[in-house]
């Protein structure tokens, strides 16, 4: 019985083992699989986090690069701004610009007043400009042409807003029209007769502003005061000149949007001496002196000098529409003059000029530098821009000038000039010019009129 029970028990245990064993094994295997699965999941999660972290770090690195680029100082080179280094926000910048004009001037009728035909450098001006912060700008412009060094501009602008700015230093007083056009942008190689009667450069303080996006531009300033055509660095008396200009461009759209009209003027006292007369001589377009007040080295008492009020008034206008550009101004310049042996007298000289130009190649004419639609590139079949120009100007001396203050036997009373020109813009920065100008005079010699001046001027201009 015991044996049977043992046998049965053993059989049941065996059977149970046989039946249960696969289940236990399966359970064990399941537990192992779960463990592996969890481990794998953990590993996947860990790797997923690592990948996400790497991606995020890459994003942040890209952001840092972008932010760093914003702070980066950028050097640039362009026809408009020359060579510059500026901060990313544009608030700090140094710009190097330049203007070089290589001229050839050939006089065609100079038997009475021989003038040497010449190749020469008319202007060689490095221009340094700086922007410091949001409001301050500086400009320095010397000229090294023709073997001399002359400082033309050295000023600081405080630009409070478009409607209000302050300029201190040496610069163009706000008188005239053609004088205020940049030397690199003028239509003819030399300015017209009328520009003889306005100042060139002076030292002083000027307030200015543009109202309504340039519809009204105004300048008003106090200056040392210089003679007509003068470029002064100091003053010889306590008196100062006050200059003002208002220029309107009332039409913002349409054909008349290029119309500008204005008036400028200056007034002040000037007291010269026989040794330093503080009076101007006037030049022809060929840059030859054709008028000067009486002066003598042997009898200085006959020298003429400024002695009283000097007043200039210049109504002016321009009009640009499509390829056509017109500009004109009338200048009246009065100065009280004196000789020690002659009573003081106010002399009023007058001048005017009218200039027109037209781009045969269709460029939009402008007061400022014009960019050719297509720069010179023969391989591409483009040749830049071509502009035709014509001008007439006159300058009349006050009749009372003669004979007390100028010798009618050697000094004309009036000059009239007409000119034609051709300008070829290879690119905005490079311009070739050829002008012909003919100037006639009234009086100026004992026998009659001074010999007319006719000359051709050629120019290669590089401005950047």
């Amino acid at each position, binding site marked *: 019985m015991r044996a049977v029970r043992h046998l049965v028990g053993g059989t049941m245990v065996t059977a149970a083992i046989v039946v249960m064993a696969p289940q236990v094994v399966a359970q064990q295997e399941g537990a192992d699989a779960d463990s592996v699965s969890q481990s794998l999941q953990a590993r996947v999660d860990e790797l997923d*986090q690592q990948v*996400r*972290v790497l*991606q*995020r*770090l890459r994003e*942040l690195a890209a*952001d840092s690069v972008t932010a760093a680029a914003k702070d980066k100082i950028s050097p640039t080179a362009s026809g408009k701004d020359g060579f510059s280094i500026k901060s990313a*926000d544009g*608030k700090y910048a140094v710009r190097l610009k330049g203007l070089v004009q290589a001229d050839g001037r050939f006089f065609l009728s100079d038997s009475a007043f021989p003038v040497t035909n010449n190749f020469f450098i008319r202007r060689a001006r490095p221009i340094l400009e700086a922007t410091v*912060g*949001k409001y301050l700008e500086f400009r320095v412009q010397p000229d090294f042409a023709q073997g001399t060094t002359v400082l033309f501009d050295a000023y600081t602008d405080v630009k409070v807003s478009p*409607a*209000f700015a302050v300029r201190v230093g040496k610069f163009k007083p706000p008188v005239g029209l053609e004088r205020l056009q940049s030397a690199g942008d003028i239509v003819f190689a030399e300015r017209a007769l009328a520009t003889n009667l306005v100042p060139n450069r002076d030292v002083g303080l000027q*307030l200015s*502003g543009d109202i309504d996006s340039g519809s009204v531009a105004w300048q*008003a*300033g*106090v200056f040392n005061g210089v003679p007509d055509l003068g470029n002064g660095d100091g003053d010889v*008396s*306590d*008196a*100062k000149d*006050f200059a003002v200009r208002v220029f309107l461009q009332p039409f913002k759209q349409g054909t008349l949007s290029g119309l500008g009209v204005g008036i400028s003027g200056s007034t002040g*006292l000037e007291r010269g001496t026989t040794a330093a007369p503080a009076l101007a001589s006037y030049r022809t377009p060929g840059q030859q002196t054709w008028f000067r007040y009486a002066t003598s080295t042997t009898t200085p008492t006959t020298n003429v000098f400024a002695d009283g009020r000097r007043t200039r008034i210049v109504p002016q206008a321009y009009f640009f529409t499509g390829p056509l550009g017109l500009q004109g101004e009338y200048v009246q310049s009065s100065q009280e003059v004196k000789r020690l042996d002659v009573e003081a007298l106010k002399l009023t000289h007058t001048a005017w000029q009218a200039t027109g130009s037209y781009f045969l190649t269709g460029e939009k004419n402008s007061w400022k530098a014009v960019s050719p639609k297509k720069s010179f590139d023969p391989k591409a079949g483009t040749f830049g821009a071509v502009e035709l120009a014509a001008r007439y100007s006159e300058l009349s001396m006050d009749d009372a000038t003669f004979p007390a203050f100028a010798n009618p036997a050697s000094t004309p009373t009036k000059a009239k000039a007409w000119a034609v020109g051709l300008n070829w813009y290879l690119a905005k920065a490079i311009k070739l010019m050829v002008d012909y100008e003919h100037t006639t005079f009234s009086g100026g010699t004992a026998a009659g009129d001074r010999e007319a001046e006719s000359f051709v001027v050629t120019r290669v201009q590089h401005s950047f």
Partner: protein
Amino acid sequence: MRTRLIASIALLALAVGADRAGAQGSAKPVTLLNVSYDPTRELYEDFNKQFATFWKGKTGQDVKVRQSHGGSGKQARSVIDGLEADVVTLALAYDIDQLAEKGGLLPANWQTRLPDNSSPYTSTIVLLVRKGNPKQIRDWGDLAKPGVSVVTPNPKTSGGARWNYLAAWAWALRQPGGNDASAKAFVAKLYKNVPVLDAGARGATTTFVERGIGDVLIAWENEALLAMKELGVGKFEVVAPSLSILAEPPVAVVDKVAGKHGTKAVAQAYLEYLYSDQGQEIAARNFYRPRKASVAAKYAAQFPKVTLVTVDEVFGGWKKAHTTHFADGASFDQIYQPGR
């Protein structure tokens, strides 16, 4: 001669005066720039609209408020460098102190010019974890455990990150046997668990919420609640630590800029309006703790109860905290080096 010169100058001065008078006489629309820290975008979007309505009704003048947001320290630097903020609403007083000290843009006593130390709302630092809190994070101590990935921005650039750092430090100080050395060791351990240091609080939120990185985000309370509500409904939980820090983000008119822009009056009114019932309501709706008791009581339920300490009582004020912890070479630089 001199008389004529004086007359000329007087004429010029008259012209300038006339120009200025013309400018001041008209009720032109006015624009303010509010330079703020990272997580206040939504708050000021709401507030600016409300203020514009208020100001128009009061004065008839249209006001537009432009916003600039970024890490608080970085924003302060930008203002010192010339960003023309009429008002600043930054993360910590130290950053506005810098505007006074380094920029001379407002007086040193700026904080006394508005109530509550020029802090119209407060916040604190909490922990945001993923739903179910899989790493069982209950308090600051859990953040330093191995295997816990912590997201917090860079205290060098982010005001919020400084609050985070100081809150962790303050908790460690209050632990049994806690002192500066043990606190420093704890915070060092915590930052070893930080895989990514964003520049600002909003960037850190992006890292945690949108990029799915980390187990816990140390965050402004308002940022954490906003993330729960708008960025991931049901995906996150806020864990209020046993101790945190009372964050008092300050506001100020930048006198020099507002004076130049002629916006001082409207800028002052803008900040004062933050203390009004409407301003406080908007702050509370954007999960900032309002100062006004009546509004605070109304919104009490949305803010977890946390024991709060202040920077003044634990760290001796912001200036000292900066020198000890965040200046170049100070504690943070000692415990955290990028790439390690």
